[in-house]
């Protein structure tokens, strides 16, 4: 919620409100949710990257190794290995970026200083999850170095 908190005169934000902006003096104020959106994205971002990477490399491997339909030859090794390694590199970079941003939110709450005690734990958790995500991405993706073919 935004606005002054003194004396019960806290006026909700009209911007992005879900109820009538013109019809009601008190729209439902969803600005609180909006302000936390980026932090919540940082919380789950590393894991979203991991699951996206996993499904991508798995589906490419299915297409390359299970599929015998027309047009699926393009996925066969060495394409499978190259795609997996490139996807792994991109996913690790994404996890690192998310981890960096989460770390920054954890160390420096910036203009959200008044909410720092309740925001920092989630930023820290986001950093941990990005770290685990990058580890998991590497562990899965680098297995193509051991099994480069179907």
């Amino acid at each position, binding site marked *: 919620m935004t606005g002054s908190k003194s004396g019960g005169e806290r006026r909700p934000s009209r911007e992005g409100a*879900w109820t009538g902006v*013109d019809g009601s003096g008190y729209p439902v104020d969803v600005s609180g949710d909006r302000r936390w959106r980026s932090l919540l994205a940082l919380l789950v971002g590393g894991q979203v990257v991991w699951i996206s990477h996993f499904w991508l490399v*798995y589906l490419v491997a*299915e297409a390359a190794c299970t599929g015998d339909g027309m047009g699926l030859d393009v996925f066969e090794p060495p394409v499978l290995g190259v795609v997996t390694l490139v996807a792994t590199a991109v996913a690790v970079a994404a996890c690192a970026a998310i981890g960096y941003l989460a770390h920054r939110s954890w160390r420096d709450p910036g203009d959200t200083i008044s909410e720092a005690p309740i925001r920092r734990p989630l930023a820290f958790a986001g950093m941990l999850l990005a770290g685990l995500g990058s580890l998991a991405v590497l562990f899965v993706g680098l297995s193509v170095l051991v099994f480069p073919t*179907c």
Partner: protein
Amino acid sequence: MTSLPPDPPLPGEETPITPEPSTHAALDRLWADPPGFRGQLTGVQNDKIGSRLILTGFFFLLLGGSFDSVLMRLQLAIPENDLLNPQLYNELFTNHGTVTMFLVILPLFEGFAVLLLPLLLGTREMPFPRLGAFGYWTFLFGGLLYYSATLFAQVPDAGWFAYTPLSGPQFSPDLAIDFWVLGLGVAEVGAIAVAFEIIIGVLKTRAPGMSLSRLPLFAWSLLVMAVMILFAFTPLIVGSLLLELDRGFGTQFFNPELGGSSLLWQHLFWIFGHPEVYIQSVPAAGIVSMIIPVFVRKRIVGYTWLVAATVAIGFLSFGLWAHHMFAVGLSPIILSFFAAASMMIAIPTGVQFFAWIATIWEGRPQWKTPFFFVIGFLVIFLIGGITGVMVAAPPFDLQAHDSHFVVGHLHYVLIGGVAFPIFAGVYYWFPKFTGKLLDERLGRWNFWLLFIGVNVTFFPMHIVGLMGMPRRVYTYDDGLGWGIYNLISTVGVVAFIVPGIAVFVWNVVRTLRRGEPAGPNPWGADTLEWAVPSPPAQHGWTNLPLVTSRHPLWDQDDLAAGDGSLVKFARGIGQWPLRWRAAITVSIGDGRPQEVFRVASPSIWPLITAGGVLIIFLAELSKVRWGIAVGAVGVVIGAIAWNWPHDPPMTTAEETAFEEEHGVAVNAGGSVVITAWATGIAILFVSIAFASLLLSYFYLRLENPRWPPAGIVDPGLGWAVTAAGLVVVAGLVARWGMRRLLAEDRGGFMTRMAAALLIGITGLVLQVTDVSAVGFAWTEHAYGSIFQTLAWFTLLVGAITLLVTALVLYWGWRGLYSSRRHAAVANVARLWSATSVIWIVGFATLYLAPRLT
């Protein structure tokens, strides 16, 4: 985070309880379900729904979990035993696995959630009480439908995973598997309904000040569990639909001879089945994280790490399913992906273990029964987890697969990791809801009998499994050396586990009759539920608590103290309104109040809607196909009546008066926030089902060298493109209509919604005509099967959107909507956006994918 709490209160004393205001009795009456039999049918109150789910889960546990396992163990006690015949043994192990995985642990945890969350989160009710009631009824009906197979001597016998082709029409031609598919299908609908409630309940209905970072760990774990249920059960429902279509309508999804794939079933099943294990163990870990700090008088070590671990397990568990399929001949590269992901999950689980051990290490344990069960959990689950890492390695798994080693492993996980925390939770929270403490001495007997029993029963299975004894065999030859291990296992069940469960049942019965009274906080616990009387009032909280700590009862002297405007708001809610059931929504992150909204009242319609769902599945089971239409009509009528808008119980002027006083919006007509969330999650649910069908399409396409098969021409594009264009235009016009309503142009709103309806109907009719005219049947080849199924699924989504649009148009004509009360219209606009995307992706796949090859 790790310092001692300031002088923990002695049990039952010094808990900060705000004196109940004079409105307490009036609110208690307002929130109570109607009395008598009518109240039993129409009741929606969370105490009722939650305790029913738990009791029904225990009922199925005694029926399927205990009885079956005793019989199976007696059969295996000695070699070449003829107590049971092979068919009965098949039925018993199928029933045992099915009941415990679908009908016991799931309702127990969903029941815990519905019962506990409002108190734990400092709110009065779950956000959708009628959905909770619907979830319970469908779960009960589904369980009974499944169990009614016994009455007709059609007991499912294909294992709890019902692998095709064994479960297909060729090898299981009778109705047994239909009971399995359809009975569980009804129960799965109920599971997803309650998951909706839990997700929105945890995210949006909490006490003022309860930020995400102050959320109790059990609430975090229930949130993760519910999201996992949504993502895991939906593919299973799709898989069950395809299996039933194969069995009842002659499609070829799982028939390799006509383009199908039996492995497709395994993928769809295990993409549910493995997350299901974590759906069970994540909330169990949440219970452990609640109990340990209370019984060692120490704040949990590593709260943030535990939150991260819980979220990580939720994600990682969706990349592990094929480790159940290591022996089916997958490519080594695919095996390595799944093995790697399976081993990774040991990291967050290990984090949890070390956090728990560190908390115990730092604290001073009080050896009460809940704590005993937690220690039992740590020991047994650790062993189960380590054997889990062993079977995550494909070379080892290929040796242990389908052996008793796996039986030992999974029971260590599910009994140690899930059942023990459930017992701990029951002992812990029983006094809150009954006002009586379970007997401590019987609790010790209960624990030690089960702890010894589980180890005596299941440890030898690891050994006999490594010696080569397979699972699911009704007997074995003498002289293999397996006899002594099996005998020990049977002794464990008969001499320890059965008496252990009997002691528990006796303890509950005895305590209900003459148990020691419990105060509000018998354990000196830290979370909000212990601040209200035991048992709590119907509405839970009169004045909403104000939360400023993760451990409010340890850190806060007064739950009514806090930010000035919040104090005034919380008191205001305690005094007003007294004519309708008011609860609040808060912003996700910081827990600031967003809205006061009206919670639904008791209603018969959830029961009728659940009855309609049952009729649909029953009609398919009995092959009385017109009954499916009857059931569908029942569901539609029930759902419309259940959501039928009533005049808000107060005028906008009265709402505004409260708003002016407290600065928080009031919506006596119904929440705009949580209905938007419900629409979003409904869209997510439909999208997951749709994605499951799309993946099935592409999996079948991968397996077929020719797609479409020889002799089938590609479907023409003209009508499909026109229909898709019309649907997109209809969606845009509907959104335009909503904007006119926001601008108070109600005439413009009505004409645009009517136009959207007409344009959408035209698109639907065109596409239905085109799909009906394609020159191939769903019975000829898997291509036709998936084409028709995906097409009709997409058409059904479009038809539902049109139906809802028509309803909104009718209610708009009745004058229900304005710029202030426009939540339903906004939700329809959201539905149209989702429908447009699903329609385009669905028909683009069906019409373009064959052309690409």
